[in-house]
């Protein structure tokens, strides 16, 4: 199980957002027990020893939950293993002699900061526009006052499992953020607590999303790339709720 393989790393290097980028190639020997990011750590250590600047890539928890990491590996967001974030990918998924192409997550909404690090703040802007339930600290009623059907709670969790890594946008040929947004909207739309703001939330979040990202054409790549396997169903619910919201918001503002 402790095999060592030789791979060729072809990695994107880019000084700053405005500089042109290029690929850089490095041979690397690595044990298959190492994680993908540890392979890059090791490469960085070697670069540092040689006096070359290490490759900038982001990661934090390395447990697949914080959503900080995210690389395009051989043309796939988060690499070849399904339902696995980059940090949980291990080198045993690769063969001796493989060439591994590493690129940043790309989209106009995710400008490259440096090398493999991108700015995903538009995802925060989407949340800011309505991805919350307005309840001030201390204003909450007893938690068991509102029962929630177990199925609804479970389904809401399926959506809430989103880690906000942006792989859906990276994998989407249209750079659409539908899966992210629909997961956020869906999570709250399924719970009774989310109902009062359901329509205004949906409308606001979709519109901010569309100011940064592309249009969903239902390829389904996002679901395949998603480390949490968020279902495409949420996109359908979002589409339904958005148009409903347009109608309802008129009604709520007394125009009908």
């Amino acid at each position: 199980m402790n095999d060592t393989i030789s791979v060729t790393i072809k990695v994107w290097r880019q000084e700053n957002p405005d500089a042109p980028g290029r690929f850089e190639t490095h041979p690397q020997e690595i044990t298959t027990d190492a994680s993908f990011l540890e392979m890059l750590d090791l490469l960085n250590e070697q670069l540092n020893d040689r006096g070359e600047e290490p490759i900038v890539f982001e990661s934090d928890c390395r447990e697949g939950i914080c959503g900080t990491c995210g690389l395009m590996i051989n043309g796939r967001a988060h690499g070849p293993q399904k339902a696995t974030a980059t940090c949980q990918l291990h080198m045993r998924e690769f063969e001796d002699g493989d060439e591994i192409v590493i690129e940043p997550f790309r989209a106009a909404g995710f400008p490259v900061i440096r090398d493999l690090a991108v700015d995903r703040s538009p995802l925060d802007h989407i949340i800011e526009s309505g991805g919350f339930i307005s309840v001030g600290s201390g204003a909450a009623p007893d938690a068991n006052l509102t029962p929630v059907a177990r199925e609804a709670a479970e389904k809401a969790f399926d959506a809430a499992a989103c880690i906000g890594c942006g792989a859906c946008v990276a994998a989407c040929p249209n750079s659409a953020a539908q899966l992210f947004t629909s997961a956020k909207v869906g999570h709250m739309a399924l719970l009774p607590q989310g109902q009062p703001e359901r329509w205004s939330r949906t409308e606001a979040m979709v519109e901010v999303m569309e100011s940064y990202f592309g249009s969903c054409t239902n390829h389904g790549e996002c679901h395949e790339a998603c480390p949490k396997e968020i279902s495409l169903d949420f996109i359908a619910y979002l589409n339904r709720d958005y148009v409903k919201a347009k109608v309802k918001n008129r009604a709520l503002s007394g125009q009908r």
Partner: protein
Amino acid sequence: MVQSIRERYRVQPVRAHKRNWPFPLNIYQSAVGRKWVMALTGIGLVGFVLIHMVGNLHVYEGPARMYEYAETLRTLGGGLVPKGLILWLMRFGLAGMFALHLHAAITLKDMSRHSSEDSGIMSGAKKYAGGRDHIAATYASRTMRWTGPIIALYLLFHLADLTWGWWLGPDFVRGDPYHNVATSLASLPVAALYVAANVALALHIFHGAWSIFQSLGVNNPRYNHLRRGLATGIAGLILVGNLSFPILTQTGLINEDNRPCPVNDSTGLVCLAEQAEGH
């Protein structure tokens, strides 16, 4: 808004917020709403294609029945409305749906292109310099933007060929579709073009018909697994039906060897009408 100290690192929206149009037009201002329009017009267009294909199957009953079918379309509404009015209304409806479908598609594609080009570093439309490995996206879904224009061009050709008779010349007899079809499709290049275009059409429908459910949010976990099959079924049906016409003409199954009536727009049509009566 989230603060970034250096404006240089601030992610700019790809598109600015526009003034809201009055309801319900404002729905069309958003991509999600535009996808609704694409889905709804898509339903209309797929429905038309399906009915058109089924209607055309009359060709296998011979020239007289084909004439009768065409005449039925023109006299829809019976004596209540002027002849051809309903048909023209339907044509305008179709043209409108087609135009909306096209406009939405072009603008959405444009939006996606703007959202995919990364900060000017990559040239061309390719999102990834190192290539992409698609997992879920099918050939059909990725070629919608090619099959769409192919269908549009084919539609123009099809209208010019069999509705307006631009190049059949004296061979084109208005009101005798059987003759026109048999004549046009007898030419190998024309038949080949029809085959190619209908493959594109079927691919387009294969993704489009499935996509309709997603875009409209028609989603019920109990029936979701049927959606792919339904889309495949519709696309397949249209493909088989539509391909049968050029192929069977080429193989000689559709021909004018046993034609009872002469080919012209006076006596010929009268003869066809009588044939159909006596059927």
